[in-house]
C-alpha cells in the first residue's frame, strides 16, 4: 500500500526542494523530444499552457478540447485575479507568506512541498503573462496594480478588471496558437476523451469522440496529461460551465488512477441566489467585490419580513439595524475571510431566519459605504462589468441597492491523486490544474486556481514529464491496432449504445437535477453521518433508475448533445457516490468539508489532526465492489498546524 502512494517529495529544506529536484531529474535531448508524443486533454489554463510549453520544447503534442475552440475552456470565466508573491506593494509579502497563507487557507490538508513550489513559481507566471501581452491593471506610473483577496492580509492579487481568467487564458491560448502555427502542436477541438488506454500498466493514449461527426478515434502517445478541470457539475447547479464535467478523470480512475479527497468541494460565498426551478446554472460574483463590499443581514426579524414582502428596500434599513456578521465574528479579516468561512457564516444567518429574499436563502453585499468613501466612479472602474452583469441577471441596480448573494458550488479541491511530479498512480498519466488534488487541501484561497493552473502548465509539468519520458526514447510508438485500443473502443461504443437503447420516459437533465439535489442537501455545505448514508442509498437507487428510464434521442454517429450529456451524467452518479463515501469516512470538519458532528461551541470547524491528517486516495475495484482507500500521511515539517484563526 505504501508502494501505491509514493508522493516523491524531495528531501531537504523547504526552499530548496524544487531547485534540488529540478537539478537531479532527467532531461530529454532535443533530437529525442522529436520522437516523443504527448497527448493533452483540456485547454484551460493548465492544458493550454502545458501544450504550448511542451510544443515549444520540441515534443509532438496533440491537444483535445470539447469546445469549438481552445479559448472557451472555463478558466475563461475566472474573474478576480491571480496571486503572486511579488511584494510590489511593499507590504512585506514573500514566497514564504504566500506559502503559509495557502497552507493555512487549505486547513492543513495539502502538502508543504507542493504548496511551497507553487508560491515559488508564482512570480514567474506574472512575468510570463506580461511578456505575452496580458493587459493587467496598472497604476499611473505604469507599474502593475494589486488588490486583496480572502485569507490574506497583503495585496498580492494581480488582475485585469473582472476578467482576469479570460486574459490569462487568452495569453496561454495565444502561446498555443503560436505553437500550432509552428506545427509543434495539433489541436482537436470538439473532441471528447471517452477512455484512457493503459498498456502494461502505463498510459499510452486515448479513445476520443469527434463531437461533430460522432466518429470514434484512437490516439496513441508516450504520455497523457489530463487538464480537464473539476467535477463541481455533479451538483447540477454550480458556477461551472454547462459542459464542464468529470468524465475524463473518472474514466481514468476506472482504469487505475487513484482519486484523492473527492469530498473537498468549495462553496463560493458570493453567487447570485437561485431564482427558480428552471435555472440552469449559478453565476458567481467575484470575490474581489469583498474588497469594498460589506456583507450583512438585518438584526431584526421584522425587517427581514418587510424585505421578503417587498415593503421596504434594503437601503432604507438604518446602519445600526444591520448585522455585519463577518466583521462582527472575524474582526481581523472581516469581509475578507476565506470562502469556506464566509459561506458557512451566510448559511448560519439564513438558517437562523435572517435570509433576505423570498426563499430565505440570500444575504446582502453592500457597496454604499465604499461609494460614499471613494465615489461611484472608482467603484465603476473597479467592478463595472460585474455590476452590469448583476443588473442584467437580476434587474436590480447594485449602485443603488445592495446585491443579494448566496453560496454555491464553485471549485473542487479533490481530484486525481498525483505525486510531486504531477503523475497519477498510472505511470505516464499526469494531471494538472483543478483536475489534480495536490495544492489546495480542504479549501482553496481566492486567486489561487489561476496560479496553480499556470504553475503546473508553464513551469512544473514541462520539467517533470521529461524525467519520465527520458526512459521512453527507445520505445517504439504504440500501434493503435493494439488489443487495448480495440477493447476500449468496443467498451465505449457499447456504453453509448446502451444509453441510446434505454428509450425511457425521462430526460438526462431530469436525472441530473435530481442527483444535484441529493448532493446539495447531503454532501453540500453541511454533512452528517445519517445524511451521507442516506445520500449513498439514494444515489444508487437513482442511478439504477437512470439506466432503466432515461431517454437519449438521436444516433451515435452524429452531432448529439443529449448523448454527450447522458454519458457525463452517468459518470456523475458514480463520482457523487464516491464523494459521499469520502465525506462519510472523514469524520472531522476541515476547510470546505463541514461535518455537523464536529464543530466547536460557536459553530467553527473542528479538525481532527490525530486521526485525519492524511489524503484519502480511492482505488477502483470494479463495478460492484467498494473502492479501496489508501492513505497518504501529511507530514508537517516546517509549519505547525494550528486552529485557523481569522478573528484576531
Amino acid at each position, binding site marked *: 500500500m505504501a508502494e501505491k502512494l509514493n508522493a516523491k517529495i524531495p528531501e531537504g529544506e523547504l526552499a530548496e526542494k524544487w531547485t534540488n529536484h529540478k537539478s537531479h531529474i532527467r532531461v530529454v535531448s532535443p533530437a529525442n523530444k522529436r520522437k516523443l508524443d504527448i497527448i493533452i486533454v483540456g485547454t484551460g489554463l493548465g492544458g493550454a499552457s502545458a501544450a504550448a510549453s511542451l510544443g515549444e520544447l520540441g515534443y509532438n503534442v496533440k491537444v483535445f478540447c470539447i469546445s469549438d475552440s481552445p479559448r472557451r475552456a472555463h478558466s475563461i470565466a475566472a474573474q478576480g485575479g491571480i496571486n503572486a508573491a511579488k511584494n510590489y506593494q511593499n507590504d512585506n509579502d514573500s514566497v514564504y507568506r504566500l506559502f503559509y497563507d495557502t497552507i493555512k487557507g487549505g486547513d492543513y490538508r495539502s502538502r508543504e512541498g507542493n504548496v511551497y513550489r507553487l508560491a515559488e513559481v508564482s512570480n514567474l507566471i506574472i512575468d510570463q503573462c506580461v511578456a505575452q501581452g496580458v493587459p493587467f491593471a496598472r497604476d499611473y506610473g505604469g507599474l502593475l496594480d494589486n488588490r486583496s483577496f480572502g485569507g490574506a492580509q497583503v495585496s498580492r492579487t494581480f488582475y485585469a478588471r473582472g476578467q482576469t481568467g*479570460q486574459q490569462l487564458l487568452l495569453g496561454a491560448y495565444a*502561446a498555443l496558437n503560436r505553437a500550432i502555427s509552428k506545427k509543434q502542436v495539433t489541436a482537436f477541438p470538439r473532441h471528447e476523451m471517452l477512455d484512457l488506454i493503459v498498456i502494461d500498466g502505463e498510459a499510452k493514449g486515448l479513445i476520443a469522440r469527434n463531437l461533430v461527426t460522432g466518429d470514434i478515434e484512437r490516439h496513441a502517445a508516450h504520455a497523457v496529461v489530463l487538464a480537464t478541470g473539476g467535477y463541481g457539475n455533479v451538483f447540477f447547479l454550480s458556477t461551472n460551465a454547462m459542459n464542464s464535467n468529470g468524465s475524463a478523470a473518472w474514466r481514468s480512475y476506472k482504469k487505475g488512477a487513484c482519486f484523492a479527497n473527492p469530498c473537498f468541494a468549495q462553496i463560493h460565498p458570493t453567487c447570485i441566489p437561485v431564482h427558480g426551478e428552471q435555472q440552469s446554472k449559478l453565476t458567481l460574483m467575484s470575490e474581489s467585490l469583498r474588497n469594498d463590499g460589506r456583507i450583512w443581514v438585518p438584526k431584526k426579524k421584522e425587517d427581514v419580513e418587510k424585505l421578503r414582502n417587498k415593503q421596504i428596500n434594503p437601503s432604507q434599513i438604518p446602519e445600526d439595524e444591520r448585522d455585519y456578521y463577518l466583521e462582527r465574528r472575524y474582526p481581523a479579516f472581516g469581509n475578507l475571510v476565506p470562502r469556506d468561512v464566509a459561506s458557512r457564516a451566510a448559511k448560519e444567518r439564513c438558517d437562523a431566519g435572517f435570509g433576505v429574499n423570498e426563499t430565505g436563502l440570500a444575504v446582502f453585499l453592500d457597496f454604499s459605504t465604499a461609494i460614499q468613501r471613494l465615489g461611484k466612479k472608482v467603484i465603476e472602474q473597479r467592478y463595472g462589468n460585474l455590476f452590469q452583469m448583476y443588473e442584467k441577471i437580476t434587474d436590480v441596480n447594485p449602485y443603488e441597492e445592495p446585491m443579494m448573494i448566496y453560496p454555491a458550488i464553485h471549485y473542487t479541491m479533490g481530484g486525481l491523486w498525483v505525486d510531486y511530479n504531477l503523475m497519477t498512480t498510472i505511470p505516464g498519466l499526469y494531471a494538472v490544474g483543478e483536475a489534480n488534488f495536490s495544492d489546495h487541501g480542504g479549501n482553496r484561497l481566492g486567486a489561487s486556481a489561476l496560479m496553480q493552473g499556470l504553475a503546473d502548465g*508553464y513551469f512544473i509539468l514541462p520539467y517533470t514529464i521529461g524525467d519520465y519520458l527520458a526512459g521512453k526514447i527507445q520505445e517504439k510508438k504504440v500501434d493503435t491496432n493494439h488489443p487495448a485500443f480495440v477493447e476500449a473502443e468496443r467498451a465505449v461504443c457499447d456504453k453509448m449504445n446502451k444509453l441510446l437503447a434505454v428509450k425511457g420516459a425521462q430526460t438526462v437533465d431530469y436525472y441530473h437535477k435530481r442527483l444535484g439535489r441529493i448532493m446539495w442537501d447531503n454532501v453540500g455545505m453541511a454533512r452528517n453521518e445519517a445524511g451521507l448514508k442516506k445520500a449513498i442509498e439514494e444515489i444508487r437507487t437513482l442511478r439504477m433508475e437512470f439506466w432503466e428510464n432515461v431517454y437519449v*434521442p438521436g444516433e451515435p454517429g452524429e452531432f448529439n448533445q443529449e448523448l454527450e450529456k447522458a454519458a457525463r451524467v452517468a459518470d456523475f452518479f458514480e463520482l457523487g457516490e464516491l464523494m459521499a463515501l469520502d465525506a462519510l469516512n472523514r469524520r472531522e470538519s476541515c476547510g470546505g468539508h463541514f461535518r455537523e458532528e464536529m464543530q466547536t461551541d460557536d459553530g467553527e470547524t473542528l479538525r481532527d489532526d490525530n486521526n485525519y491528517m492524511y489524503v484519502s486516495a480511492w482505488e477502483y475495484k470494479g463495478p460492484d465492489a467498494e473502492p479501496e482507500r489508501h492513505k497518504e500521511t501529511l507530514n508537517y515539517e516546517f509549519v505547525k498546524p494550528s486552529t485557523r484563526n481569522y478573528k484576531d
Partner: protein
Amino acid sequence: MNFTLRIWRQANAKAKGKFETYTIENISADTSFLEMMDILNDRLIRQGCEPVAVSKGCKGGDPVAFDHDCREGICGMCSLYINGRAHGPDDDVTTCQLHMRKFNDGDIITIEPWRSRGFPVIKDLVVDRSAFDKILQAGGFISVNTGGVPDANAIPVPKEKSDESMDAAACVGCGACVATCKNGSAMLFVSSRVSSLALLPQGKLEAARRAKAMVAKMDELGFGSCTNTQACEMECPKSISITHIARMNREFLLANLKD
C-alpha cells in the same frame, strides 16, 4: 409568458434547412433565453409523452442543437441570431445573458444561426467558427517562449495604453460582428487582437507583421471587406470600438510600406 418560436432546423452541414414553428407557455420573466431553449428541448424530447408519472417512453422529438457553455457571458460559445439581431434585442450582452423580460408576452421570436460564409452551419443553430482560430494562429500572439522573460515591472506601460489594450482584449470571439455585417467581414474581431497587442510595448515589435499576416488569413478564409457600416460595434456584446479597426489599418499600411 407565452411565445411562438420560429427556429432554423438543419440536420447537418449538407442538409437543406428550414424554419419550424413551436409554441412555449408559462415562461417566467426571470428565465434566461437559453433556459427557455432548455425548456423547449425538454418538451421536444418528451413530445407525445403521457404525463411524467406514466412510464410509457418518450417519442423523442428531436431537440434543437445550440452552442452554449459558461452562461455568464464570457466564453463566447453562444451564438444565436434572434429577431434579426446577433444575441437578440438587449444591448451589450451575449445570448446567455439575455432574459425573457426583454420580450413581450405573446411575441413571435425568430431564432437563426450566425449566417456567414466564414461560419458554415454544423447543425440547427450550431456553426463552425474554426476560422477564428486559424486567423489567430496566423499571428495573434507575441513571439515569446515559456521562460526567460524580464520581470513584469521591468517595462512600465502607460495606464491609458494598458486600459485601451484591455478594452480591445475584452473580445470573447463569439462572431456576432461577422454575423451582423452585411459583408461578413471579420474586421472587428481581427482588429481587437491586433490593436490590443499593438498598444503594448511587448507587442509593438511585431505589430506590423502581425496585422499583415492576420488580414491575409482573414481574406483567404472568405470573410468580406469592411465598408464602415459600424454594425459590428453596435452588436458587439463587449462594446468593442471600431477605433481598433482604424489602428489595425494603420499597422497594415505600415507593414505594406515597409515591404
